[in-house]
């Protein structure tokens, strides 16, 4: 029989049982919709993480003391006293692939300006830090060498901090604020950066000279929490990382084969690490969603089996007037595939729609890729063929006389 005729027959038989067809498709609809939505959410968060990592700066290398990275989380970073100022100076002096270097000291607390107050995090950094991380100052100036040497009580604030401490008529630059009761002068205002990949506010930050934070706020401890370095170029990231590793091992008398009490992470590695975790996430999400597709497929099989039984006499008659087993097989298989494809189509629409809803309602980063739509769709097709095959071949194997006599 011609495909077109089969198509018409299959469509008609689905049309005769509209409600049943719809209910049968429901499993596939939900399956495809959830595969697409899950992948969209996965892809979205992955994209935003990638964005954020590339927003780390240009050719960034980070050095952490002590504890090692585990599954993307630094465990109690900075607990070991393994990075000192001398190390930093040695890197600057001996690693030719290193362009900029800056330690980071983290603190936080209450900030008061006049009658306003705000809580924010404070980072002590060298002036070079802004070059490493491509942070731009909108008005005012960056730190001078003297600021660092003298541990001057000056700071550069982010837009959110400015908005919460000053009214719109006041220029924050030149104002005096108190951070944890210590008086500071605002010397610069950062350019707005907006939301980060995880939805955090990148403008809710205060920078002060490293020495200021280290000595005045962290109690003059010698260890460095983190070192930010930028390599001279993208190709030099790996060489720089090796130079640093060699140097620090020599300085600390640690052989190639031992675990060092420091940790070097390059931007590339971090990207890879996050992508691999988000890949695992996505596989997991897609796996869960595929289960509903398979359940949907079982639903199709179930209904097709019922349909074959119900229509045994029809099958017998078709055979009596000349249908071959092959024709019957195709008819029922096409019906199952149409069910799953139609379900796939509706599911894809729902999936895309709900992904858009996630963006609007939850503010989640969501990326619907055409790949995921095509994949979900072809998966639905495969499910249709797979689960439609058994009922269809059962129909095709019927003996005409027995089928005609079936009550």
């Amino acid at each position: 029989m011609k495909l077109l005729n089969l198509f018409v027959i299959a469509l008609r038989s689905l049309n005769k049982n509209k409600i049943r067809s719809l209910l049968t498709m429901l499993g596939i609809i939900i399956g495809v919709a959830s595969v697409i939505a899950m992948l969209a959410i996965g892809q979205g968060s992955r994209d935003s993480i990638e964005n954020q990592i590339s927003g780390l700066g240009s050719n960034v290398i980070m050095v952490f003391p002590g504890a090692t990275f585990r599954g993307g989380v630094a465990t109690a970073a900075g607990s070991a006293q393994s990075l000192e100022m001398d190390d930093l100076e040695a890197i600057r002096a001996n690693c030719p692939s290193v362009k900029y270097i800056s330690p980071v000291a983290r603190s936080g607390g209450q900030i008061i300006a006049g009658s306003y107050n705000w809580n924010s995090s404070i980072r002590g950094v060298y002036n070079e830090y802004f070059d490493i991380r491509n942070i731009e100052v909108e008005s005012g100036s960056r730190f001078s060498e003297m600021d660092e040497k003298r541990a001057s009580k000056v700071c550069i604030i982010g837009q959110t901090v400015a908005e919460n401490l000053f009214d719109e008529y006041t220029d924050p630059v030149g104002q005096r604020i108190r951070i944890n009761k210590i008086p500071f002068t605002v010397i610069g205002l950062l350019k707005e950066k907006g939301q980060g990949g995880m939805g955090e506010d990148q403008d809710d930050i205060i920078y002060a000279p490293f020495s200021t934070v280290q000595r005045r706020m962290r109690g003059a401890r010698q260890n460095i929490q983190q070192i930010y370095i930028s390599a001279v170029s993208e190709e030099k990231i790996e060489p720089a990382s090796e130079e640093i590793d060699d140097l620090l091992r020599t300085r600390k008398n640690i052989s190639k084969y031992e675990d060092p009490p420091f940790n070097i992470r390059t931007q590339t590695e971090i990207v890879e690490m996050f992508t691999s975790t988000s890949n695992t996430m996505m596989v997991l999400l897609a796996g869960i969603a595929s289960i509903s597709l398979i359940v949907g497929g079982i639903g199709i099989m179930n209904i097709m089996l019922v349909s074959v039984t119900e229509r045994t006499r029809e099958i017998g008659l078709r055979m009596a007037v000349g249908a071959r087993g092959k024709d019957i097989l195709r008819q029922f298989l096409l019906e199952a595939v149409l069910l799953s494809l139609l379900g796939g189509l509706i599911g894809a629409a729902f999936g895309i729609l709900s992904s858009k809803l996630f963006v609007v309602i939850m503010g989640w980063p969501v990326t619907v890729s055409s790949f995921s739509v095509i994949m979900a769709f072809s998966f639905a097709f495969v499910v249709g063929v797979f689960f439609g095959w058994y009922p269809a071949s059962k129909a095709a194997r019927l003996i005409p006389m027995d089928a005609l006599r079936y009550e």
Partner: protein
Amino acid sequence: MKEQDQERKKIISVKNLSKIYDMGAVKVHALRDIGMDIHEGEFTAIMGHSGSGKSTLLNIFGCLDVPTEGKYYLDGADVSHLNKNQLARMRNRKIGFVFQTYNLLPRTSALENVELPLLYNPEIRRKERKEKAMNTLELVGLTDWSEHFPNQLSGGQQQRVAIARALVNDPVIMLADEPTGNLDTRTSFEVMEIFQELNRKGITIALVTHEADISKFATRNILFRDGRIIKEIMVERVKNAREELNKLPPEDEDI
């Protein structure tokens, strides 16, 4: 008569045909050593008690079943040992089968029911299919009912749709297994009138019945018992269904 028969083309010819249903513990001999011919243009009625093997024979004639032993030639070709697909093709091109229970597809129009056999013949295009189906419906007098569903038709009309369906592929023989079994006398005669008309046009027909008065509309009667042909008669005075219908009391007086 006999000489004339031999000149005519043999549509069906069976030799030493037997059918045994193996039910494990028992073997049912439905047909035992049957030999018979059906010539072109004949109208044969197969008679016999229930269980005598009439349907079994007709099903073999209709390529719906295969004999256990013996030879079956349909339109000159040996079809005793065809495989499933070849049998399907035979049914599609050579056979028109009418069932006691009509077997129309539900929720499918009369016209589409008639079209059905042609759907399984890829040589026939859509336009030709519609035309043929419509013409065949006209032959059975149902032109105005072409768009009706089976459940909107009377039993007699449904059987006429089924006859049209059996005719639409221009079969070499029309086989009917108790086509009037579910119908009252008047409707039975109406259906037989159609068969007679078709036979007059040259269509070969074989039907199974156990009503004696139905068998008298045929030109030839074959009597079955226990899977054997026990008697064959040429009907001397073939009844005319049209005339018999006129003899029936008018319809409104039936009540």
